[in-house]
């Protein structure tokens, strides 16, 4: 017994001796030191960023498993890309089990932090920001894991992204919690992903607060099983500044939650208010597409027990036309799509939309309206609005996401 304990202690020491800490302080050598550390690091190593601004001329990249990059805090240790000349993102991570914590990436020319093809990526206390505020010349994404498993984003901040501040794309098993997204086009976006819990976040002053999307033509599609709960999704009022052509350029200014396509999305226990267009919008993907496997309908959607504040007082984008048609925008607006066209062939799918037990400072119970556009993508001029609340079917909630490391 004693022998075993001694052996274990020796192993621990050996392990500690192998894991190294690289220290990088701001200064003329910092860029080279930092990139060298990110290349030469061994699995288990930590790269510590000192206090102050590290100026980068090119994008950084990390391709070593289980490395931690840690600063002194998102307000203190700053990777500044003000003078970036090369690289499509600020920091690119392509290895597994990486933790990023307590630093900021400012003013990257493209995306701020991209993590691609990772199993296990943690953002903790990280800030991605374009400091001039909303501007179409800002990079697209702030915190950007794509095709990753086991994504954890917590206590992080994203500001000024010209697409989405926190954007999780084509990933599996995701938690986004206790984070702040503001002054982005989309605050938090979960796209073409399987299994996401989004909770405890604040999404404010964006064009749209929280988006759950599924788009055609991508390696991973058929997004499903997303829970959005206990969030503060308020006062999203920044005029849409996305470059035209991008899907988020169609998000109406003043949208709280937007669910497009996707299956089994549950939105509950949130504060959603002061969103000038609409608090919750549920819609099919409305563009034409060429992809036999893709289902553009939003289906198995539950919106319950939310606390709705004011909305619909300044409908923008496509929905501005609704106001002109004399339709008052409710708390929860559904396009009503249950049929879509796949290469000219009409198709349908079981579409269940459940809206229940919400409260509203405006309308008491929370108002609902279907636009009665049964075919995905029909023009709004064909709307035949129907305020009938759909039947209260039981749609099982996805299981809680557990990050597996």
């Amino acid at each position: 017994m004693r022998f075993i304990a001694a052996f274990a202690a020796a192993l621990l020491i050996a392990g500690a001796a192998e894991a190294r800490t690289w220290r990088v302080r701001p200064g003329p050598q910092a860029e080279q030191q930092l990139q060298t550390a990110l290349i030469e690091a061994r699995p288990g190593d930590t790269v510590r960023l000192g206090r102050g601004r590290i100026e980068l001329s090119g994008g950084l990249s990390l391709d070593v498993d289980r490395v931690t990059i840690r600063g002194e805090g998102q307000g203190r240790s700053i990777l500044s890309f003000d003078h970036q000349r090369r690289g499509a993102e600020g920091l690119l991570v392509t290895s597994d089990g990486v933790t990023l914590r307590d630093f900021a990436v400012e003013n990257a020319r493209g995306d701020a932090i991209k993590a691609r093809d990772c199993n296990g990526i943690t953002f903790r206390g990280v800030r991605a920001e374009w400091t001039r505020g909303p501007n179409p010349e800002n990079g697209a994404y702030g915190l950007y894991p794509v095709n990753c498993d086991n994504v954890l984003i917590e206590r992080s901040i994203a500001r000024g992204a010209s697409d989405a501040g926190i954007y999780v794309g084509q990933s599996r098993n995701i938690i986004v919690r206790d984070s702040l997204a503001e002054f982005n086009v989309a605050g938090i976006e979960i796209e073409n992903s399987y299994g996401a819990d989004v909770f405890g976040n604040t999404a404010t002053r964006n064009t749209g607060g929280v988006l759950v999307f599924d788009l055609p033509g991508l390696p991973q599609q058929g997004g499903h099983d997303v829970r959005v709960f206990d969030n503060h999704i308020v006062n999203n009022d920044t005029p849409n500044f996305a470059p035209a052509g991008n899907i988020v350029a169609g998000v109406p200014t003043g949208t709280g939650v937007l669910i497009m396509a996707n299956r089994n999305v549950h939105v509950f226990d949130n504060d959603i208010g002061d969103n000038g267009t609409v608090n919750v919008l549920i819609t099919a993907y409305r563009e034409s597409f060429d992809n036999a496997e893709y289902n553009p309908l939003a289906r198995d959607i539950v919106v319950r027990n939310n606390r709705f504040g004011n909305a619909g007082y300044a409908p923008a984008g496509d929905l501005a036309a609704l106001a002109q048609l004399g339709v008052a925008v409710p708390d929860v607006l559904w396009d009503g799509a249950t049929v879509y066209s796949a290469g000219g062939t009409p198709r349908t799918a079981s579409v269940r939309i459940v809206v229940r037990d919400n409260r509203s400072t405006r309308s008491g119970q929370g108002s609902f309206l279907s636009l009665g556009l049964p075919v995905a993508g029909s023009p709004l001029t064909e709307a035949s609005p129907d305020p009938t609340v759909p039947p209260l079917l039981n749609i099982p909630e996805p299981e809680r996401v557990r990050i597996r490391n």
Partner: protein
Amino acid sequence: MRSAFAAAAFAALLLVTGAAAQAPRPVNLAAISAERPPELLSAYRLFRDAGAREPNAGVTPYDLNTPLWSDGALKFRYAFLPEGTPAEYRGDGVFEFPVGSVLIKTFAFAADMSRPTENVRFLETRLLIRRADGWVALPYVWNEAQTEARYSPIGADLDVSFTDAGGAATTLEWAVPNRNQCKGCHDLAGAITPIGPTARNLNREMTYAEVSENQIMHWRRSGMLAGLPASAIPSAAAAYDPSSGTLDERARAYLHVNCAHCHNPEGPAHTSGLDLRWTQTTPVQWGVFKRPVAAGRGSAGYEFAIEPGHPERSFLLYRMESTDPGVMMPETGRQLADERAVALMREWIAGMGPDGAPNHQ
């Protein structure tokens, strides 16, 4: 006087023995297989001279039908395969090279690019070495004096000035890629892989010691390649040689070589859903009426990567023309726009029918 004569004779003797010692020694196989790469390129003895102009025995130069464009740099390519172990032919993709193979590529600029054989400055020589557990990428950076190239895994920035082929004075900061950036292009499903030496791209004439021969045939005849099919070997179009293929074939060849190493279903850009390999047959997969996914301002406000008939509304072309790091494609490996390629793409997109079908004329 006498001693001076003796000294001269001794010096002559030294010269003779020196010359004897310079009789080329073979490629250093130990250096190739070394776990820790040699500090200097010369340690491999891939070349007979320190300046790496004269390949050693067994080091075979090769060219490609359509090469990757890298700010217009000259490229000198060689392959070394251990004797008696040919590469295995593949009809699609890169040949299967034996362990111990080295693919060598030197990047260079001539002082006047309209005279590409004079005043040539080597910038870096990249080795791709096939080890037992896969390929490794090793960049070597040349010194100013052009006498040695040193291993540089974290990359380097080199100031380069030259007069371009059109006569314009050009300066750029040449970025030698670091190890991660090598993998940014040479990546297939997470492992490092070569890009150039495919049947289609090697299938062309090459001058060997003043004799012209098809490269594939030469490789087979010299024992570098085995397993060739009885059927015809496929050949890629040369992007700017109309006699080598239709406009569509030449544009697709350019996109394959310059873009498909990332834009393929297993490459670094697979999440975009854009597949620019020449084997792809579905137009939306190579951008026709394909909407932006994560392009950000790279979309330029246009709806589609390629809108047939409308190069001015096709953001694939916009990203090729851009030199903004947040917009441009490819993301790395260039600071200038490839004007000839931009013209080729413009012509190709302008000539497409409304459904994206190529305009064969």
